[in-house]
Structures are given as structure tokens and as C-alpha cells.
């Protein structure tokens, strides 16, 4: 198999999505540590040549260079998950996974802005970022309450998919930007299930317990 290399910053939740996918898929990979903070290395020319957006993660898989956590995770599932479960292609499961991946890269990215603001002094109105973030987590909680009524534990299918991987860090790290888990019972339940999946790993800000 071609070599998989992740340009990684340990405290970056988008890199964490990729690390989760690599680990849960049971893949062999290596990481290159990048000085994202305070060095801002991803915005230097050698990195911009790989990702003009100047952020992480960046993945190399053989001849392929890819940026964007959701695209990377989707590629890993498509290329390296023979079971086809992590990115299902049949029925309505594919559409539902796509909907939550788009939500993750779109509206939910406000949680990344909130965390960058709280931890790394990125610009932004802390209160507004927190309010928008809690609204997005509420949408996720509402969805999982309804899923629970149907007897389903996961966001998009009857089993865990890359949608769950993409959505997990925003909730698991929400205390970093001042949002407690108190009012999101369905997400607490989901996160407890997620943590028991084979290959689950933590990152700074997500305790090893529970």
C-alpha cells in the first residue's frame, strides 16, 4: 500500500478528525508535526504549494495530495474501507452522510472559529461565536433525539459513518470555548457510544475517561 502521511498539528480539531479516521480504519500512517501555532507554518510557501488555503490538515496518500478534513476523511473511507460502512453508497445513507459532512464544513465551522478565538487569540466576537455555536450544537442534539426515537444511535446510518467522525470534535471540545455539555443529553449519549468504537483516540481537551 502507498504511504500515508498526515501534516499534523496536535491541537487542531480538523487534524483530529483525520487522526480519528486513520485510527478507526486501522490504517498505517505517519505524521509530520507542523508548527501551526505560534509559527503559522501552514501559511508559508512550501505549505501553500500543497494547500493554498494555508490551513491543516494536509494528507499525502501515494501520489495524491489532499486538503480539507472532510474530503480527506471521505477519501480514506472510499479508498481504504473494504466494508464500505464508513462511507455508505447505497440507499439514502450516502445522501445523509453528505448532508452532515456539508453541515460540518459549513455552519458548524463556527465552532472552529469559536475555539480558535478562545485558545489561540484568533479575531472574533466571543459572545456571538459562542451563541452561534450553541445553536449548531442544538441542531445536532435535536437530530439525535429524533434518531433515538427511531432506535438509531448514529447521525446518518444504522452504524457509525464518517459523518459521526466529522461531527464529534465540535461537541467533544465545546468546553474549550465555554459551552458545557449540560443541555445536550442526546449528544452526550452519542459521544459515549462514539468513544467505545474500536480505534477511538482522544486529543488534548478530550479526557481519556468515561
Amino acid at each position, binding site marked *: 500500500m502507498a504511504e500515508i502521511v498526515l501534516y499534523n498539528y496536535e491541537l487542531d480539531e480538523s487534524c483530529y478528525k483525520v487522526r480519528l479516521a486513520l485510527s478507526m480504519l486501522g490504517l498505517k500512517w505517519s505524521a509530520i508535526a507542523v508548527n501551526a501555532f505560534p509559527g503559522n507554518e501552514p501559511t508559508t510557501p512550501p505549505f501553500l504549494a500543497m494547500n493554498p488555503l494555508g490551513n491543516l490538515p494536509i494528507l499525502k496518500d501515494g501520489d495524491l495530495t489532499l486538503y480539507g478534513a472532510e474530503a480527506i476523511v471521505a477519501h480514506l473511507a472510499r479508498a481504504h474501507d473494504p466494508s464500505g460502512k464508513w462511507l455508505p453508497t447505497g440507499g439514502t445513507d450516502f445522501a445523509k452522510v453528505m448532508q452532515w459532512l456539508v453541515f460540518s464544513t459549513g455552519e458548524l465551522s463556527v465552532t472552529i472559529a469559536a475555539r480558535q478565538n478562545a485558545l489561540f487569540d484568533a479575531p472574533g466576537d466571543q459572545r456571538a461565536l459562542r451563541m452561534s455555536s450553541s445553536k449548531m450544537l442544538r441542531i445536532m442534539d*435535536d437530530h439525535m*433525539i*429524533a434518531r433515538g*426515537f*427511531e*432506535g438509531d444511535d448514529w447521525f446518518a446510518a444504522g452504524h457509525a459513518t464518517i459523518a459521526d467522525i466529522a461531527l464529534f470534535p465540535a461537541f467533544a471540545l465545546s*468546553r474549550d470555548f465555554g459551552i*458545557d*455539555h*449540560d*443541555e445536550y*443529553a*442526546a449528544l*452526550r*449519549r452519542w459521544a*459515549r457510544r462514539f468513544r467505545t468504537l474500536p480505534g477511538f483516540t482522544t486529543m488534548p481537551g478530550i*479526557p481519556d*475517561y*468515561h
Partner: protein
Amino acid sequence: MMTTGVWHPIALSVSIEPGSSAGTHVGGRELVVWRDNSGVAHVWEDRCPHRGMKLSFGFVRGDHIACLYHGWQYDTAGQCRYIPAHPDLKVPRSITVATYRTAEASGMIWAAIESAESAAPALPEDAGEVVPIRSVYVDVGADALLAAIEATPPRPFGGTERSVAAKLQRVGAKLHSLAAGADTLLLGLQSLSDNRTALHVVVAGPASSYVDKGQAHFLAWTAELRHRLDAQSAGSNHITEAA
């Protein structure tokens, strides 16, 4: 014997799984609610006596809850039993967390937080079999929430007409019943602070009648109710800012 205080609903019973914990508030007071592995629920002050860390950030192991900060472990009576940094130490009896009388009834976890153990009020009456809907969190006080509920009555499950006879009745200090046709919702009101309230919603009746479709029906009602209250508080913020 004089009793003091009332029973406060703290969470839906299903929201606190065995071996898990969560933080919450009553009147601004910080509480941790947790369930040990044998299934018994506990409501305590949310504060480790060691360094003041929230116990709700911690984790449950068997019948102990452990602080995330330094791993101090407390038994179900709130007594510290183990300090990892001093594994051979017999922990002094004085290291305890404040605990509150806790009960479960009508699909909710209740706590008597104002009263001493001996002076707790009578247990909330149990409604028999109930099916959980959800907890809703809104930025208004309990009275405004009740007014909004009366203005947004649920339709009976299976019916299409909004029940004109929807009837809100106080059945306990913090518990209301809401009749909609043949259905009865039970509403637990938890005052998190002066202007934030949790509404714990269950429907009275057997699982066979309400699981899945009936739950989804009343879930949609809670969304409608919350939407109304969100619009209200957005409106009042607007007025405040304009003034």
C-alpha cells in the same frame, strides 16, 4: 415535622445513563447529577472539595464518581474514598461533597436541594408508566414559559385539530400536567436561573402507544414552543438594545 423546600426536577431519567454524569443548575446553584453503575441516581453540589473543580467534568467508575482534575474518588454518600496521589492514605472522614436527597418519579430525576435530610418534603407522586420526550432549555423564567405553553397547546397524538380543551394544571410544586385530547403530558419545570428554565417533558402512558411516532409528535410540539420563545426573547433583546 416541618418540611422545607420543594422537589426540583433535574433531568429526564433516560438522559443520565448508568455510569455517566452531567452538570446542571437550580436557581444559579451548580449541581452534578450522576448515575452509578447499579442504576441509582445522585444529585450533589458540583464541586470537588479539593480544588473546586466541577465533578460533572469527571467520570463514574462503579459506585464512585471521580474528579477529572486529580482523580479524587467519592462514594455514593459523598465521602472521599481514594486519593490517587496518596494511594495508601486512609482518607479523612471530613473530605465530603454536599449531597442532596434524590428520587425518581414520572420519568424524571428529582432533588430536594433546599432541605436538610430530615426535613425533605414528601416525594413527588409517581405517574406510573411514562414515555420520555425531551428536555427543552429556554431563555425565560418559569411563568413566561407556562404562559407560552398555554398559548401553544399541543395537538393530540393522531389528531389534527389543535385541542381547544388543552388544559394546563399544576400537580406539584414543579410539575404540571397538560391534557391534549386523550393524551397527557407531564411537564417538570427546573429554574436554572431567574431567566433560564428547563422543561422536562414526558407523556403519560405505555411505551406501546407512544414510542417512536408519538414521541416524534410531541418532539415537534416542543420545537414549536421553543421557536415561539426564541422569537420572544429575540424581540425583547431588540427592544432593550433599541432603548
